[in-house]
């Protein structure tokens, strides 16, 4: 089944953001990490488990009337490191974005170690996770040095 066919499963959007190449089954988590929930008023379309040449199967999300920025996209590194984002204006792709991470993920998630100094919510310094490797994604807390369990980490999104 072609890429074009996948995209047609839901209506083309006039303005907004298309997030493609989300690992199958992770679309709901992506919405959660972007803070898109029942309180959001923008229309959102989502397809799950559609065929993909590169990934086997994948999820796709279309958010209307909202343009994701690079910082928001970088938050997705934890669940959808290969996600591609297209910013749509007047039915055309106006910009393409991919996840760009430096050496650290700052103020996106809290360290998963229960005895880390950052577990005190009143401590004001930034939450910082060092990136040891991108594929596979390996992270350690800047402060306590503990390796992070990615499955657990997605529950610690700030």
């Amino acid at each position, binding site marked *: 089944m072609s890429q074009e066919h996948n995209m047609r499963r839901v209506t083309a959007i006039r303005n907004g953001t298309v997030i493609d190449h989300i690992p199958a089954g992770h679309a709901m988590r992506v919405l959660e990490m972007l803070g898109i929930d029942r309180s959001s008023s923008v229309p959102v379309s989502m397809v799950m488990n559609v065929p993909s040449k590169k990934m086997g199967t994948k999820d796709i999300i279309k958010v209307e009337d909202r343009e994701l920025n690079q910082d928001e996209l970088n938050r997705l590194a934890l669940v959808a490191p290969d996600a591609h984002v297209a910013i749509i204006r007047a039915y055309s792709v106006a910009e393409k974005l991919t996840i760009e991470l430096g050496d650290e993920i700052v103020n996106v998630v809290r360290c998963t170690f229960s005895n880390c100094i950052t577990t005190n919510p009143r401590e004001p310094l930034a939450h910082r996770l060092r990136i040891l490797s991108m594929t596979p994604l390996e992270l350690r807390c800047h*402060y*306590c040095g503990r390796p992070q369990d990615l499955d657990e980490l997605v529950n610690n999104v700030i």
Partner: protein
Amino acid sequence: MPGLITMDDLSNEEILSILDDAQRLLPVAEGTTYLPLLQGKILGNLFFEPSTRTRMSFETAMKRLGGDVVNLGDVKTSSVVKGETLYDTIQMVDGYTDIIAMRHPRQGAAQYAQDAARVPILNGGDGAGHHPTQTMLDLFTIQQAHGRLDGLKVVLAGDLRYGRTVHSLSHALTRFGCELILASPSLLKMPAEIVSDLNAHGGNVTETEDLLGSIESADVVYMTRIQKERFADEDEYAKVAGAYKLHASNLDGAKENMIIMHPLPRVDEIHPSVDQTRHARYFEQAFNGVVARMALLCRLLNVEVPADIGGDA
């Protein structure tokens, strides 16, 4: 070098140079020579959890060098009990002092404090994390006994999971090419990420539950305390802890110059009969805490230790 949080903050050359400084400072630590290198400087001692040796040796080190010390005092009577954040405490003490020595029950607290402070932080233990100033005095003790740090066979024994002293020490010893035997009950094994780091740095590491069988070929046996509260029941503790107790009779086959170390306090993992053997080094090790911390205080405060101090060192 802003502070000393983990042993990664020091290169091997810096470690050896600080140990040289420590060697020259011995007569000052012993009180036979007065050398007020740190006159006018103030150390802030922030111990958020109990400490005897680390706190006292920092204080002694500063005073032997003519400096002064202010203490956080008992956490129960400080503003910490009112809910003050570590960040705020550090902001305050940063303004009062030139350097801070800190112990905190939370892992990562020392790095956090360093990020919040302008003055150098000396990590005196952060949860089950690191204890690099202990490592410096351990390395000093090993070098005193063997005349070198490289290529030794070192047994680290007891609670390797929660024991922060062995976490820092294992990193440093690996960097000097030592062979490590990690002897512990399976429940208290060295954390996997540390073993993985040691291996990634070319470490020669063996994990075993057999302490006594490891002694014969060792140059250093580093004992740590196994805490009762780590076990679900007392019988299990008694069974496990029994295999990690040293008695003088266990040392018959040991190398002549093998040394036994312990960060102290010990409970019953080293029998008093060991104290009288040529192998016991733990009390000298505790004294070395003063001289190693003197050298570190000078280094972090950018005060050069003179090449010729005099005295007997």
